[in-house]
Structure formats: C-alpha cells, structure tokens
C-alpha cells in the first residue's frame, strides 16, 4: 500500500500550526508560526511544514483546516471545528484521555472525550478574556515580564495573593494596585495563575472532570497554571510538548479518516 500523507492546519487567533501525518500514525513534520488568523502566519506555517518534511502540497492526500481562521483557507479540502479536532488529537497523544482542558490565546474550552476519541460534550468560555492566554499576556505586560517567564517566577511565590477571576480589566487594576502596595511580583503572578485556574476550573466542572485529564493549547506550557488547575480540580493533569499542536494533529487525523 502507498504511503498516505495528510495535513492538519490549525489557524488560531494568535498562532498558526501545521502537522503532517504519515498513514495516520506518525508525525513526520510540524510547524508553528506565532501569528494567527488574518496574517501571513497560515501560509508561512504551511510552507514550513512542507519544507521540514521534504514534501509538496501534491503529496498530501487530504488537507483539513481547523481553528478560528479555518474558513479562509483555500488550500484545505475541508474544514472542521477545532473542538472536534482537539478531542481527536488529545486521544492520539493520550489514549486514555476523557477530559481536555484547552486554553488558547482568546478562549478556553473543556472537552469531554469518548473512549473512541470523539467529542461527546464541551463548554467554552463566555465572551471575556478572563481565563485565557490573552489574560496572561495582559498581566505579563503590566508586570513587565515575558509571558514565558511567568511560570518560573510564580513558582517562587511565598505569600498567597488573590487576584479576581471575573474580568481582565478589573484584574489588571488589581494587579496595578498590588504593585503599588509593593507586593512581590512572584506572589502576584502566582495569584494570576490561580485566578485563571479558578475560572477554567469552573468551566471544567460544568462538563464534569473525568480522568485522564489533559491540558492543551498555548497556556499548557505554563506549568504554574497547570499546577494551579491540578489543585483547583484535585486531579492529576497531563500535558505534552506536542500539546500546542493538538488541534492540527486532530485535523490531520480526521484528514486521514476522510481518505480511508
């Protein structure tokens, strides 16, 4: 049988990710460009993933797009919602997954995944940046730290500080007044992580949290948020360096199913 290559493209609000799968089993190439829908990100990510794999568009048996910018992608044979793709991708990486907590740049979602890797139920955040990657970006800016350093700094916290989880704008002014009071930056960061965990934890309880629990999306790289969520939900949460590619991976898997 010939080798079957399929491509999954996930155009998020803040990043574009691609994965090429061989025979629906092996990741042969992946790419990530840190700008998303409406930018040059998608085409750059596609060019990169093909180049990394030494492949051409014609080699792809099926290309499936997902994510916020999925509708505006001509190269794709089909588009699907990222919720279905995330469920599938997580099941590939963690075969026993039943709950996926995905915190992306602009939204947070919790998925209940069936034994077969299909989406069973889900909830998404309301139209508010609280509890999303955007929230962390805003806070990092106020604190004058790189968003990538939040986890390390938060881990050094000594004193518990509460930051409200209802609204990004409120939280921003809370952070500023804490800074003005001279509160240690690490304590504030830890408070911010717990604030995100509180918000997303509430969302997760709405669909029900069933093990194994997996965290994906850009924010999964922040172990401060991940540990705060473990405490919040009183459960172990797994993640993977591939977690950011989860949507694209799921899309590539669906693409493989489409051509079978």
């Amino acid at each position, binding site marked *: 049988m010939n080798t079957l290559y399929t491509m999954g493209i996930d155009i998020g609000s803040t990043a574009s990710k691609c994965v090429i799968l061989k025979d629906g089993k092996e990741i042969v190439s992946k790419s990530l460009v840190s700008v998303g829908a409406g930018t040059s990100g998608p085409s750059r990510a596609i060019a990169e993933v093909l180049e990394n794999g030494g492949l051409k568009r014609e080699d792809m048996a099926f290309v499936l797009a997902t994510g916020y910018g999925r509708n505006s992608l001509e190269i794709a044979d089909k588009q699907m*919602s990222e*919720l*279905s793709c995330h469920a599938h991708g997580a099941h590939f990486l963690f075969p026993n997954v039943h709950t996926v907590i995905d915190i992306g740049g602009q*939204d947070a979602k919790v998925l209940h995944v069936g034994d077969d890797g*299909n*989406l069973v*139920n889900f909830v*998404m955040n309301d*139209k508010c940046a609280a509890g999303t990657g955007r929230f962390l970006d805003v806070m990092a800016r106020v604190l004058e730290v790189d968003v990538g350093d939040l986890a390390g700094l938060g881990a050094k916290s000594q004193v518990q500080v509460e930051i409200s989880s209802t609204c990004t704008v409120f939280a921003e002014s809370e952070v500023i007044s804490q800074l003005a009071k001279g509160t240690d930056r690490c304590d504030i960061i830890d408070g911010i992580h717990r604030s995100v965990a509180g918000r997303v934890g509430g969302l997760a309880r709405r669909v029900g949290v069933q093990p194994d629990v997996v965290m994906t999306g850009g924010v999964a790289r922040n172990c401060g948020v991940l540990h705060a969520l473990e405490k919040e939900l009183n459960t172990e949460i797994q993640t993977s360096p591939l977690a950011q590619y989860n949507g694209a991976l799921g899309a590539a898997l669906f693409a493989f199913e489409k051509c079978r």
Partner: protein
Amino acid sequence: MAIAEKLAEFRKIADNPKTQLEHYKSKGMKAVGVMPYFAPEELVFAAGMFPAGMWGSNTKSISRAKEYCASFYCSLVQLDLEMLLDGTMDGLDAVITPTCCDTLRPNSQNIKVAMKNKMKVIFLAHPQNRFPECGVKYTESCYKKIRAELDEVSGHKTTDEEIQNAIKVYNRSRAARREFVKLAGAHPEAVSAVMRSGVLKASYFMLKDEYADKLEALNAELKALPASDWKGVRIVTSGIICDNPTLLKILDDNKCAIVADDVAQETRSFRCDAPEDDADPIHALAIQFRNQDYDILLYDKFSSQNRRGEYVAKMCKDNHADGLILFMQQFCDPEEMEYPYLKKALDAAGIPHIRLGIDHQMRDFGQAQTAIQAFADVLD
C-alpha cells in the same frame, strides 16, 4: 409566487421595521410601539392603530440609552430605548411597556422620563398570580386601563365588537404561525433558519390580518411540497430571541434544521389563543394571559417540579430533535436563573444541548460558529 419569493418578502419586511412603520403612517394610521412580553396587542389593532413590535435591533449600537440604563441591562431593552431616543421610532404615537422582568420594570420608567413630551407611555404590570379569579380580575383591570389610554391616543372609543374581531384576527395569525413552525421543521430544505426567522419576525411589523393572509398562502405552498428526507441534524432552539441572520446562517451552513422552538420572540409568543366566544372581550384577553404557561417570565407555583424544563425536554422528544441550542441573552436574569433547571431536565431526558451567550450588538460570531459546528458533529 414561488416559495422562495414569498420567504424573501417576509425577510425583507423583518429587516425593515422602520419602512413598515412609515408605510402604515403614510396611510394615516396611528402607531403604537409594543415592547415584550404578553402585551394585549389586540387592543391596539382593535383601535385601528398599527402595533409595532419592539425587539431591539441587530444593526444599531447602544449609545444614547447609556444615559439612562445600567450597563447590565440586556441589549434588547437598551436598544428599544435607543431607537426611541435616536428617532428610529419617531412615528410612534404611544408605546406600551410591559414589566415582566427586573430590567423591563425600571426601564419603563426610563422610557417615561425620556419620552415625556414625545409620546404617550402606557405602563403595563401583569399580575404575579394569574391563575386565581382575583388574578384574572387584576389583569382585566390593567387591560381596561390600557384600552382607555389607547382610546385617548386614537381619539375613538373602541367597541367590544372591534376587540372581538381583533381577537379573531390574532387567533388566526397565531394559528398560521404555529402551522408554519411545523411546516418549516418538516421542510428544512425549503425554509432555512434565516428565512424561518424572517417569516416569524415579520409578524411584528405588519397588521396581523395582512400577515395572516400572506402566511396562510405560504403555508399552503409548503403543505404541497413532497416529504423531505433531511440528512442534517434536527435541533430545537431556546431563549428570548435569536433573530440575527448572520448567526442563523451558521445553523444553515452546518445543516441544522430548527424543528421547533422555545423562543420568547417566536413560539412562546403565539402558543396561546384568546377565547372567541366570551361576551366580554377584555375578560377573554385576561383568560388568554392566565392560560400562558411554561415561560420563564411567568410565575409558576409548581416551579420546584420543574414543569417548564420537562416541557421543553418533551418538546425536543416529540419533534425528534437531536439536540437543543440555548441562545442566552447576555445578562438576562430570568434566563440565567432558569438555566440550571432546563439543563437538569435536558440531561435527565438525554438531550444534548449547548448554551451560547448572545447580545444584539455582536457582529462577529466566530465562537458561536465553532460551537455550533462542533455540536452538529457531535449530534451527527
């Protein structure tokens, strides 16, 4: 005329309320704005005036209304006031302000203050206890007061016979809408979600006799269609309002047919007729209000039994729906408080659902699109 053309006509009317208002005004009619919910619109019609429905706007933004409204008021109420303030509803000679929720109640006073020199503001407070005889009496006394106020506006003393005739017209238009909802659910290929909404919404911007004629003609054509073999999913919609064409198109794009609805602007507004054989037409309208049921805005002394939740779940089952989509108007207390009960009943009945927060000022529906597409995948 083909079905598609008829649907397009309704859609056009639904999208141009101001043109409709001007049309009736140009005929020399007076016009009365009717805000949600359960206002006895029959009295306006009986007085020979044009009742103009007021359900917010999908194209306007809230600005002047902010001077009066707290920021947590739902967009429906704020935009109604906005349209009164910005001149959109200048043709109105009066407005009826029912007070079924904690947002409508204070806003009726905002409108009164804001409109004091412009138009008559007719206050309507339905009774909490609508079932006992005293509740019916109370409703009657409210409606008598409204009748008198409308007579002042029209300059004509409405007769019982005129009201009885209005009841007949309204019952006919309600029956036609109920039938249309069934036919639209049976023929989703012919009636998209966008068009379905257009047909139902147009009823708020037409005289109901003209509307009923037009809708009965459409229904006749739909009835003649061969049975459909719909391959998409079947959903029930719920909420106060979901009339944004951009949002509804997402349902169409994802092959979601609306087979029934529990929406205040739609089925909940025409579920209940008024008796036609009552010698006292005001009593008949009060009985109609008493008979309204299964609505989040109405007091239910058996609410702990979750009758409403179960009613909606049964509606899903009876219509063989695969799932329910709840369009929740942002910051609507009655809806938010009701949600846990609805969820409980749906879960117990094994009916999947999603809840989408909406607001009249939303122009981008990216998140709703993702959720609806995923929901359709799950149901398929």
